[in-house]
């Protein structure tokens, strides 16, 4: 198997020289480059729907959607394990920490004689996240992974989460992203990363710490006005005493330490929890908080909160109440089956969808997807400057999921568009000629550029924005970038950058 470094060399050569055309099939296979196939322009509402179900619809997704329709497309995406994702898996292969246990990850960051690189697991997880959003065919699944990563937000830069978050990402978020909400909360509550992030690993009988207990109710389940009190927070914190993380040989594994557990009687949300008593087994202590979790995940406030957040993500910043209520009812009827809730929101809600401003990660992923760019995913500084590095939100509420906070930081988006289309980003390459071939197949049914700039812009805007511009808009844009001494190819790069930087591309 070729290494990632070999692949990058190879792809650079393949891009640079047609003489290496014998490499092209491998190159395409592993780089996610698309064969130029005829594709179908979608109407505006279908394009918008696909923009919610994916990180920006590629042509083969548009073709599939046109072929089978919304409902079947959703069902196909729901059954994500049946979707072959070999191409994406290959790209992830170099990131060895993704499949490691916490103590192994800690180990590779701590090898005195072999380079000490504690940024490695963070870097690999961030790169993998972007590569999956771009290259995975399981797009709706990845959209949900992002959603739950926000909902159960963990700040990877807090000590010592650099070796714990990777496991949480794999065993909590990715494992249950399209499963059952109860299993998600359950796994998150037993996740060392979450317990450390919200200080429950030091929540002890003699020194209670209420941080996790509060956020479990406020942010993960009931929501702030969901009907709990300060007393419930303190009582749940007592139930959670002793939920901690192993050290040394079993570093980074969940454990319940009965010696640290408060054995007194408790009452959370009206649920009376009787004293443990020395005669009872240790698991009785652990089961106290677990009883509360079972109550939290089936609570009507939780159903309403999760339905509201999902509807906000997929439909509109101001979620239509009728959709929220129907989704919440479905949540209760199905005991938190995520697909069932989503089905209601998507099928009933998408016709009501309102434009949403792309968050930075979505902007970057969609620009790279729709331009068929090749990237190794190392774009950290762009994410930082746009304000959304993965797992980089310090506070447990996750990044905002409404448009307003994101709308005014345009400059780094413009710079990204400019540098992407001019191929000035290290490790990220884009082939405008190939992109135009793909784009032209739609409007003109020809595989080569006509050489007419107006045609090129029409094709690019159809591909990137979903529809061509009005003629006067297109001609105004072309006139603005006219420069006597610029090569036509360079002018085309600026036009493509201008389209990616435009307001229309910032909305989805």
């Amino acid at each position, binding site marked *: 198997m070729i290494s990632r470094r070999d692949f990058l060399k190879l792809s650079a050569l393949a891009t640079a020289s047609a003489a290496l055309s014998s490499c092209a099939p491998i190159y395409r296979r592993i780089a996610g480059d698309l064969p130029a196939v005829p594709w179908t322009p979608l*109407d*505006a509402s279908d394009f*918008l729907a696909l923009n919610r179900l994916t990180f920006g619809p590629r042509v083969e997704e548009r073709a599939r959607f046109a072929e089978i329709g919304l409902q079947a497309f959703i069902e196909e995406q729901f059954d994500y394990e049946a979707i072959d994702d070999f191409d994406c898996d290959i790209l992830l292969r170099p990131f060895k920490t993704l499949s490691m246990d916490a103590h192994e990850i800690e180990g590779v960051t701590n090898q005195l004689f072999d380079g000490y690189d504690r940024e490695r697991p963070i870097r690999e997880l961030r790169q993998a996240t972007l590569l999956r959003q771009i290259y995975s065919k399981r797009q709706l699944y990845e959209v949900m992974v992002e959603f739950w990563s926000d909902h159960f937000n963990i700040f990877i830069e807090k000590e010592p989460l650099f070796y714990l978050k990777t496991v949480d990402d794999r065993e909590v978020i990715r494992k249950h992203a399209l499963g059952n909400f109860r299993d998600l909360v359950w796994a998150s509550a037993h996740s060392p990363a979450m317990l450390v992030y919200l*200080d429950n690993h030091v*929540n*002890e009988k*003699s*020194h*209670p*710490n*209420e*941080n996790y207990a*509060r956020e479990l109710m*406020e942010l993960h389940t009931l929501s*702030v*006005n969901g009907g709990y009190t*300060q007393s419930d*927070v*303190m009582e749940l914190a007592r139930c959670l005493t002793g939920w901690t993380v192993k050290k040394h040989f079993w570093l980074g594994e969940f454990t319940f330490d009965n010696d640290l557990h408060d054995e007194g009687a408790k009452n959370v949300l009206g649920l009376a929890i009787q004293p443990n008593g020395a005669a009872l087994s240790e698991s009785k202590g652990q089961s106290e908080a677990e009883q509360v979790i079972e109550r939290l995940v089936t609570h009507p406030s939780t159903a309403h909160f999760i339905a509201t957040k999902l509807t906000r993500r997929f439909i509109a910043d101001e979620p239509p109440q009728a959709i929220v209520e129907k989704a919440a009812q479905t949540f209760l009827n199905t005991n938190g089956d995520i697909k069932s809730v989503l089905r209601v929101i998507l099928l009933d809600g998408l016709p009501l969808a309102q*434009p949403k401003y792309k968050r930075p990660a979505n902007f970057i992923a969609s620009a790279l997807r729709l331009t068929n760019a090749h990237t190794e995913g190392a774009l950290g500084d762009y994410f930082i*400057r*746009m*304000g959304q590095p993965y797992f980089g939100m310090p*506070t447990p*509420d996750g990044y*905002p999921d409404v*448009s*307003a*906070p*994101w*709308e*005014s*930081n*345009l*400059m*780094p988006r*413009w*710079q990204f568009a*400019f540098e992407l289309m001019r191929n*000035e980003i290290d490790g990220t390459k884009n082939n405008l000629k190939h992109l135009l071939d793909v784009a032209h197949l739609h409007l003109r049914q020809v595989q080569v550029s006509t050489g007419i700039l107006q045609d090129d812009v029409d094709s690019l805007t159809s591909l990137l*924005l*979903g*529809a061509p*511009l*009005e003629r006067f*808009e297109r001609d*105004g*844009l072309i006139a603005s*970038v006219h420069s006597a001494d*610029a090569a036509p190819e360079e002018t085309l*790069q*600026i*036009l493509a950058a*201008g*389209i990616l*930087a*435009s*307001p*229309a591309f910032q*909305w989805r």
Partner: protein
Amino acid sequence: MLHTLPVINKSWMPRFAFAPHNVAPRGDTLVVIFLRGAADVLNMVVPHGEDAYYALRPTLGVPHPDESGTKKDERAIDLDGFFGFHPSMSALLDAWTSQQLAIIHACGAPDESRSHFKAMELMERGVDDERGPASGWIGRHLATLNTGNSSPLRAVGMGTRPQRSLSGSVPVSALRSIADFHLGGDQRALQQMRAALNVVYEDDVLGQDTLSIMDTLEQLDPATYQSPFATYPETEFGLALKQTAMLIKAEVGLEVSAIDVGGWDTHFAQGSVTGLMPSLMKDLADGMAAFHADMQQHMKNLTVVTMSEFGRRASENGSLGTDHGHGSMMMVMGGNVDGGKVHGEWPGLQDGQMIGPGDLAVTTDYRDVLSEVLQKRLNNPATDQIFPNYTPIIRNLLR
């Protein structure tokens, strides 16, 4: 341009031109520093005259100014015989002794949710509960006072996203680093790109603002900025204050600068005299002191306010940290402050004096402080619109 696509609904586009009733020349430049995460104010401005403080904080308590068994630089710095600065805030003593720094203790909001997110939301909107207006208090200040200033830098949120408090009908700018606004690269390509941006953002206020900021900031570079009077800390906070100073001196129309300082949610191992929380305090104090020194010529027209969403529990928790509490503290710095004083009624830390699970009570509403700043220093009388359903008490913190 590029807006009339079928996908895009026109309704998200316009930010309506807005003509407020109040017309007045602009007042002070306001700098609002928000300590995110609920700062432990009892260890910042220490009530060393209160025995209960030391009983509640056996390990985290900051030693009394006269504590003989402790080195002098590890004790609280006495301010008025009852309160004292944490030793890592010593840089602020210059501003204090020159009477340009006032402290309002036991200050805060009525909300008792002890939720960071709810408390910050309500405080930044300047409302009592969710039913109030959705815009922020600074946003409503900008919207209710016509100063004849249409600069895109009229109000700036330092960072990548503008603060909630700035939201409203007047466009504001987010600014992480002035250097980020210098588009780099090939000159001809840049000119083409700028022309394309000008067309695609033709009728977009934020886009046009960003282009004019780009042009305005082309000449400013924080890396080479030198102040003869001050050295700013090499931190995000230091950079934010330095850039605020640069924008004020460049006279680009800055009226409000909002700055966040994160990391104050100290549930775990916060440190007493040294450690996590003291290093946050040092960054805060060193930054404010540098700004105070650098801006001495401008202090007459400057007001700096610090705030945090609530305070922390009076007693330390078992993890050598503190849990969510209630009453907080504000600082006001500027040339027109009744400074060198701790204002506000001190409610005490004994049983029966505290509220909830053992938290400092609030005796001064944060809106009293902000209303006075707005009325006296920013020439805006419309505090009834900025803080709806609230009648402020003017506490004479300012001239």
